[in-house]
């Protein structure tokens, strides 16, 4: 983990407690009470899944990889803690977040290419790079130019060597990290805590059996193992898991945080079962069209 995380703007300004985050969002919603009642939206996690699908669709033809996608997701999440979503055109916000993230992650894309992909992926009528250019100003301004992110992938790479994770375990942990961007975890916990959680889940779940995506039931087993670790560090569980559990118990890692992350992921996988692409799309389209936000 980079020494710089502890002094980072991510830790100082963009890491919240659950209560703080709820309060922030409440403030934003209160200011737009009418809009919020008029245009109900799906669970935030379901929306995040939809956003992720849309971002991936834009990213794929441009060969944009996971890290810029992850950065774009965090930008979108940060932005919507400060600006009520129903006041925006999500298609534009997502395209802009991706455009900005690509520059930050050293994989710059021409603004015209982003515009073309956005138009391809969304039924949207903005057809002008200046829309993205202007939205970029809004995004940067709302984020106070705090654009550098610390992702769990680097911590995972270090853990992989330390614990000699198999290729499958590593792949699974990596995909669990990808999934955590669909939740509030990037705004709640340090990247290394997320990486440890992902590694732990991956080892407990044994990728050969479960495959992808991870299921809630499997993750619940992991939670039990973690519980054992807190209570009596040498009971049950197999060798490999035991080794990890012991290490966790002895390390200075915040166990409560790891448990919280695990729970958050479990509930994501539960909610995922009810995901429906069309519902998200329609409900967004409703306020965008009605309010003329796509013009």
């Amino acid at each position, binding site marked *: 983990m*980079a*020494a*710089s995380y502890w*002094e*980072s*703007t991510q830790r100082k300004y963009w890491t919240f407690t659950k209560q703080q985050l709820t309060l922030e969002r409440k403030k934003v919603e209160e200011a737009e009470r009418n809009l919020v009642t008029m245009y109900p939206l799906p669970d935030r996690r379901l929306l995040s899944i939809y956003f992720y699908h849309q971002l991936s669709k834009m990213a794929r033809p441009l060969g944009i*990889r996971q*890290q*810029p996608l992850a950065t774009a997701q965090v930008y979108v999440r940060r932005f919507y803690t400060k600006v009520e979503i129903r*006041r*925006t*055109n999500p298609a*534009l*916000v997502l395209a802009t977040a991706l*455009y*900005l993230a690509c*520059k*930050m*992650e*050293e*994989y*710059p894309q021409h*603004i015209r290419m982003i515009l073309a992909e956005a138009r391809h992926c969304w039924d949207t009528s903005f057809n002008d*790079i*200046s*829309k*993205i*250019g*202007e*939205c*970029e*100003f*809004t995004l*940067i*301004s709302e984020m*106070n*130019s*705090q*654009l*550098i992110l610390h992702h769990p992938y*680097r911590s995972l790479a270090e853990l992989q060597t330390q614990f000699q994770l198999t290729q499958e375990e590593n792949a699974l942990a990596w995909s669990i990290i990808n999934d955590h961007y669909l939740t509030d975890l990037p705004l709640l916990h340090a990247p290394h805590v997320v990486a440890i959680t992902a590694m732990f889940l991956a080892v407990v779940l044994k990728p050969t059996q479960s495959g992808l995506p991870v299921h809630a039931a499997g993750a619940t087993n992991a939670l039990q193992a973690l519980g054992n670790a807190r209570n009596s560090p040498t009971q049950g569980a197999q060798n490999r898991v035991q080794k990890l559990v012991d290490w966790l118990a002895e390390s200075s890692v915040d166990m409560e945080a790891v448990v919280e992350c695990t729970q958050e992921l479990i509930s994501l996988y539960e909610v995922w079962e009810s995901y429906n692409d069309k519902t998200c799309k329609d409900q967004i389209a409703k306020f965008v069209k009605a309010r003329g*936000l796509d013009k």
Partner: protein
Amino acid sequence: MFAGYQTKKRVNERYKIVGFISSGTYGRVYKAEGRNGRVGEFAIKKFKPDKEGEAQYTGISQSAIREMALCTELSHPNVVHTVEIILEEKCIFIVFEYAEHDLLQIIHHHNQPQRQAIPARTIKSILYQLLQGLVYLHRNWVMHRDLKPANIMVTSSGKVKIGDLGLARLFYKPLQSLFTGDKVVVTIWYRAPELLLGSRHYTPAVDLWAVGCIFAELLSLRPIFKGEEAKMDSKKTVPFQRNQMQKIVEIMGMPSKDRWPLLTAMPEYGQLSSLATGNSRFHRPQGLDNWYQTCLKNNQYPPGAGPENPGSDGFQLLQQLLEYDPQKRLTAEKALLHPYFSNHEKPSENCFENSKIKYPVRRVSQEDNDIRTSSLPGTKRSGLPDDSLIGRPAKRLKEG
């Protein structure tokens, strides 16, 4: 989107522009005073739009994004402090703390009207502070990539601050090879040999080579390797900087495989041998020790060991900074531990301490004081351009 971008802060409500300082490829820098309760002096950098005279949003350049993000993230006494960033109607302004001097201006002052050496104590303090700033940057995975005297600020209280992060970038795990992003970096006189030889994966060591060049320049008051830049040809291929490499070899001698094992793997290695043909100075290079002794003598540093003379410790430090092999070159951290900084006298936190020399204040011009509506950035040159004092060569190529 909704009502479009709404400016929250306005430059002219917060600052009073008192003059124009310089312009460069990036845009223009102004001197300002705080308004409405903000006290003190500031330097405000206004970014040039991507295309001149652009009346609409076209997307912010990657280098401006990098600089904004890094300036926001970083905070160290030896790095120029960013006060705030203002995004106002298609323009980007970065507000910095003001520094009265920079190393280029200080070196210039010692060259005129007649040459007078910079006191050894001042140099030691400058280097010490510069290296502390660099340790901070490198610990935070930031390479500066454009260290040169014009980019090292000095406040009137003698605090040294690294400025202009316009080319800086994070160096952990880049998605693309660093080479593909920006074709060439670092003002040519301060460019490390591995860059001249076409290295694609370079490291923070490039900044330490530049520190070595700056150290040498503070001692001799002239750039140590003053080469002529080879321009890009019409096909936009990056040329081998033959003349710059020659200047280095004339003093340092040819790099060898023994001392720099990866030398033969450098893309431009083949060019190196062709340099030697017909140039006698290659076979009898001046040698850095010779250069150093001559320099101390010419600039009349008092003989003997002591705080008034950079001495043999200074030479060793210089030699270890101007090390061909980037892997053997001192790191910023190791450089700070060098005996040069502990023998005789510890470096002062104020580089002007015990110095009687009075440096002129930064010149600002009055001809362009409207920061919001000023004429096209970068087209006029007045005041004190940051790079033209002693005929600096063109600095950097635009990013591709």
